[in-house]
């Protein structure tokens, strides 16, 4: 069975969408018509230019409303999501004690050119984030946060030295898909060094999804609004399962 959904303005399936963009055209009737034609060429059905603003230097800003006839079949949408249940700190600590029985070593870093540590700190730091303590506070983790702009080589070297169970990588800057490049490079190095299967590889950042992480060869990915509890539960349960406990 298919279940096609379309954008909704005020009537089911009316397909209404708001758009805003600049074009290198003049802010006049011709420019406006160009914008309208552009929207129609993109396959929209109706296009109403509600605003045009001269941006100077030959550009004009358009705001528009249009309807699309395109729908999406919900039954065909499959997403990979982290499926382990989320436990609070005490529960995770107890779980690790019962199912694994030893301290787990987690090494984290914001790699390559990226210096945005707030995200990984939110996951790892003692004081935590939004009322959830970070991994450093968990009795079941030996959490090592290497901080900002750590070369992939250094991260892997440290992980090897510490016999890490888990690697956490953060990537916040995504311009020109630099995060994809960096994450790919790390995983390739890990494979080359034979480390890939020895530990869990987890990445995170505002434009990271679990889906993307899997695609890049990671075990899991965590996006905007993730908490230490999500990550800790995932680690505990996944490692326990791997050990067959």
């Amino acid at each position, binding site marked *: 069975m298919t279940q096609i959904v379309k954008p*909704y*303005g*005020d*009537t*089911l399936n009316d397909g*209404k969408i*708001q758009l*805003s963009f600049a074009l290198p055209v003049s802010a006049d009737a011709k420019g406006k018509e160009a914008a309208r034609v552009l929207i129609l060429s993109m396959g929209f059905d109706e296009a*109403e*230019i*509600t*605003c045009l*603003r001269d941006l100077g230097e030959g550009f004009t800003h358009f*705001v528009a*409303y249009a309807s699309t006839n395109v729908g999406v079949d919900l039954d065909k949408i499959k997403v990979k999501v982290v499926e382990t249940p989320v436990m609070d700190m005490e529960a995770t600590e107890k779980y690790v004690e019962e199912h694994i029985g030893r301290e787990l070593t987690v090494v984290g870093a914001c790699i390559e050119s990226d210096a945005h540590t707030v995200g990984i700190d939110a996951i790892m730091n003692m004081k935590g984030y939004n009322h959830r303590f970070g991994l450093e506070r968990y009795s079941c983790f030996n959490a090592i946060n290497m901080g900002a702009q750590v070369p992939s080589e250094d991260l892997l070297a440290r992980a090897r030295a510490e016999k890490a169970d888990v690697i956490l990588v953060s990537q916040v800057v995504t311009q020109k898909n630099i995060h994809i490049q960096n994450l790919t490079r790390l995983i390739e190095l890990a494979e080359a060094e034979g480390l890939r299967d020895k530990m869990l590889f987890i990445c995170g950042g505002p434009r990271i999804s679990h889906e993307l992480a899997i695609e890049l060869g990671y075990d899991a990915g965590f996006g905007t609004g993730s908490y230490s509890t999500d990550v800790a539960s995932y680690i505990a349960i996944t490692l326990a399962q791997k050990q067959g406990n």
Partner: protein
Amino acid sequence: MLKLDLDQSLVQRSRKAAEKITGDFDWLFSSYSSVSIERTVLRLLGIDGATDDGKPYPNLIIEQLQAAQALRKGAAYWVANAMLAKNCSAQQVADAVANGELELTMLPLQDPDAIYSLLLKSSSEKLSHIKAQKANRAEMFAKYGPRRVPAIYVIVATGNIYEDVTQAKAAAREGADIIAVIRSTAQSLLDYVPYGATTVGFGGTYATQENFRIMRKALDEVSAELGRYISLTNYASGLCMPEIAVMGAIERLDLMLNDAMYGILFRDINPKRTLLDQYFARMINAYAGIEIQTGEDNYLTTSDAIEKAYTVTASQLLNESFALRSGVKPEKMGLGHAYEIDPELENSFSYELAHALLTRELFPDAPVKYMPPTKFASGNIFKTHLMDAMFNFIGQLTGQGVQLLGMMTEAIHTPHLVDRSLAIENAQYLFRAVKDLGASLQLAPDSFVNQRANAVLLEATDFLERVAQEGLFSAMAKGEFAEIKRPENGGKGLDGVFECDQDYFNPFMQEMKKELGL
């Protein structure tokens, strides 16, 4: 706290002038009635329904009585006479009229005393239902807590009452306190109230009793779920003002658009008809505990908000005075004001602060109905969103009663689901950000804000005193209000106004007046 230093002599003079103006209409209120008032009486007697082609029974009956030149006694008399003659209910009388089986004035006249006592008995039935609804509402507010100040008010306007329900529930969940179902355009001009649930409307959804019921039920459900009472409002103004008021009272609407002069000025409805109808309509609202809302925003959408600021103040004072005469308590007077200042103007915020404070301080107990920027809303949704934020800022800072949220697509279409949600987000962010800011601030001595508020008050006072001198009808005829000329005997619906016979009887008005202490 932000507090104006208003010239109290102006406050007194302007109120006195307003009282004088509205006091001049005793002759109208005491000895005239209208077809809409009579239809309202029929509804209060329990008559409902419509013919297959949509004509409501109340209209049918009134037309029959009008044709027979019998309306001057009041419709109640004739229906009661028929009930006694036929020993049936009011609804059965109506059914018979609708079937063409009954000519009311042809029945033998019954004993007047029997008629009056029957009417007094029947009237108490519907009135107790209305009182029960009022008690219901009070109970729910007691249980769930009072409405926030300013309350978050959003509109739904799809034309389809069932789509409206979806959108209203979504809005309630996101934080709306009051849902307004915007009426299909120019329902004001219909001299009847459409019947039943409706799914096609134009720029809004018809105000019908069934639509009221459907929406109230949905909101009662969502109120219970959220533990917050979600109020419902609609529009009474127009040719059916008292009828819609009574439908709202029956179905437990909580607020009702009901301006004393809107119909005259903005819909070209006859002045006498409008004032007469509003008198009874507001009495019903007062009795039902419904908060009335007035339409001063309309002055500013047509004229300049700075130049004509005083017309808002003048209209508020008149609406207040008329409302008092119908028994509406100040805390149920949602007098209108609107943020319609040109955003290109320097110090637009300071002007608006002055105007908003003036409204709040002239009417400290009124849950002011504060309208968003609409006229200067443009197709630039980003800019409009900012103007709405400034509006929300002032609403919270000055403690307006009801914030009619602006939508960033105001200049484009009636709100999409997303627009409404972003409007609520906007209000919630602003309300939170400046929550107690007012407590940290006060006006500087001789501030522009204070000067401006007093200047507007002075203009309004002068204007009202002029009108008091020359009489409201004459001033309207000359175009002194909203720059439109409205002669006393022009406009729609004048033929629905009539002078009552000596023995005219409206049992409901009598009873309500008693209970309201009028």
